[in-house]
């Protein structure tokens, strides 16, 4: 269901407008100790348990046994440089139970990124090292510009 208002009639095309529901679900990483047939979602606040069940069954053909939902409070934090306390939005979390013979494992999306990160860190370390050696070499002559070095 959409929370948008159907607009007033206006001349011109296109007349046929499609209203997508503002229902969405985001798969989130479950807590570490969890039954294998339970999947965690963050979903839009307007969705009820029935909506969640229908969303998964009708769009993605996932057999859903049971849905439990909870609303978690957003984090409180201080606005940087301002000093007053602000709050993140609350989130609705859905725990979806699949049939007991099914299991779901949260995919490791950033596997490749991790390797890249390691490489980046390595080059950074090397750069740091060469800079340190440069400083060490020139510690006795602070006033001399860098291009002067042989």
């Amino acid at each position, binding site marked *: 269901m959409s929370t948008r208002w159907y607009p007033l009639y206006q001349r011109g095309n296109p007349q046929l407008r499609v209203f997508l529901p503002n229902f969405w679900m985001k798969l989130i990483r479950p807590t570490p*100790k*969890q*039954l294998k047939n*339970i999947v965690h979602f963050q979903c839009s606040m307007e969705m009820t348990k029935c909506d969640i069940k229908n969303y998964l069954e009708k769009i993605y053909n996932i057999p859903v046994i049971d849905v439990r939902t909870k609303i978690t409070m957003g984090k*409180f934090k*201080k606005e940087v440089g301002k000093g007053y*306390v602000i709050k993140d939005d609350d989130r609705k979390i859905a725990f979806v*139970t699949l049939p007991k013979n099914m299991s779901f494992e949260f995919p490791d999306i950033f596997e490749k990124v991790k390797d890249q990160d390691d490489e980046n860190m390595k080059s950074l370390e090397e750069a740091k090292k060469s800079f340190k050696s440069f400083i060490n070499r020139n510690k006795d002559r602070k006033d001399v510009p860098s291009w002067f070095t042989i």
Partner: protein
Amino acid sequence: MYRWKIHRFYLKRLSRQYSQVALQNEYSETPEYPPIMDNSLQARKSRKRESLFEKIKKLDTVEEKQIALNMPRYYGWQCVMLHEDTIPYNAMPMIKCYTRSHFIPVENLPNAYADTAVAAGEISKEVKTYIEDAIVMETDGLERDFILSNEKPINVVKEDTIARSIVKQVNRIISNHLGEKVPHLLSAQVDYDPRHEAFWFVGGVDIPTSVFKWRKKYSWYKNRLDENVDRPVQYLGSPFVALRSRLPLKPLIPYSEAENPDFKVPKFSFGPQNVGYFSRFRYGTNIPGFWPGDYDEFGFLSYHGRGHILARNNYGPDDNIEALHCQAMKSSFGWLLAQSNYQGFTTYNDLTYPLITQTVITNGQLWSFYAYQLNTVVMHNENMDLNPKHNICFGTKPLKLYETIEDGKVKGLNEEVLKMLIQFYLNTPEEREHDLKPYLGKEDQVVADIVDDNKRCWLEDTYKHLVSNRPRHFLPPETYLWEKIYKIQHNTRFHEARRRPFELDINPFQRRLNEHLPPYIPKVLRPYPRSKKKFETTYYPDV
């Protein structure tokens, strides 16, 4: 050695205020050293726990043991609530583990019932017509008012109401018919809608994520971030009818079989909220449908409803049958555990002999039969892995007692089902050769036996008040949300005096049951001539 002697010499000279004869056997031939103890944190903790178990074991009366179980928590334990009729999807592995039960699906009753098969067959023929009449009368012949509530759907209430009255009639017919032939039924007590409650600790359950995050902040938790803590579990149930007898039933299998590794129950370490069981603060109670001191204290047979199956989301027929098995294991274990508590055992002090009960789950037409043998009740902490004993539950699928009711007649009554039910009634309780109450006092076994008036009345009042689970007069202290935001998470009110419990590093939920001021004695009521005793004596067990 020399220095020690001199030291002792002077010590004696200085400290001895009166003359005494020197001990003759002060020295022995071989030196006697105190036992070397493991002083690691784990070992010290476990020794402390052991001493608590010993203290509870040494208490004399049933009520004192029950108060002792609740001593560490002023506001009650945060119990995992196992209601008899709340069974989420796929609850079987968890229920098996929490009740430590090995489930054996059977077609017929186990071998222990083989002797009574022939007699039961004859009796079932005799009572068949009466039972048919009762079923017709209770199902169609009466106009009923159903009590509606928001808690249960109407179809559940209807089914349970009809099943309750059918069960009452069936029990009346069979008891009356057998009363002359089998004496144990004549003296058996019948409870209608009794209160069955049981409380125990389950170890080996994963800690919640919030606790894990909290532990990460402290260096001393570094090596034991995952360490389990005991989960208090509370069972609440109410059968339609329960029969009790003065003597316990015969074991279904020998007690030595309890340690058979074939009966090992797989561990279920995921938190109960993953399955769909949630927790509540309350005092742990063990009540098998009567108060301590009743003579008929061994369960014989209990009838439970199965209306809750209709209220479940449609998880499929297999899961519904599993749910019935779960209900049977929960209710049988719960009732037997409560009975064993009245025999002086607790969740900390294990049973020394098996206890048996028989459970029937029915809606009037479908009947499932369960026989349960309780071998062990200890499963707290490391005992979850180390305790070799397991409980055993035999159970049948739901069987149809009759096909339909047409024109005021029952069609197709299945005598085999009736026979099984009668076999349950013919199972005779027996005298046991061993001591049934090894952990209770010789003279005082229940509070009513205590001679001291003050102590007896105080313990009775306290016990009854505790198990009534009324809320405390003052609500537990609450950390308000504004305090959490502006005092705990962000220190914005540093100028204010620190008076709230969280500012004084006090956790109100760690308060012990006896940490309160006893009732004040007004001056006029104090004993004549002069008494400085301002407060009444309390008799909390010393654990």
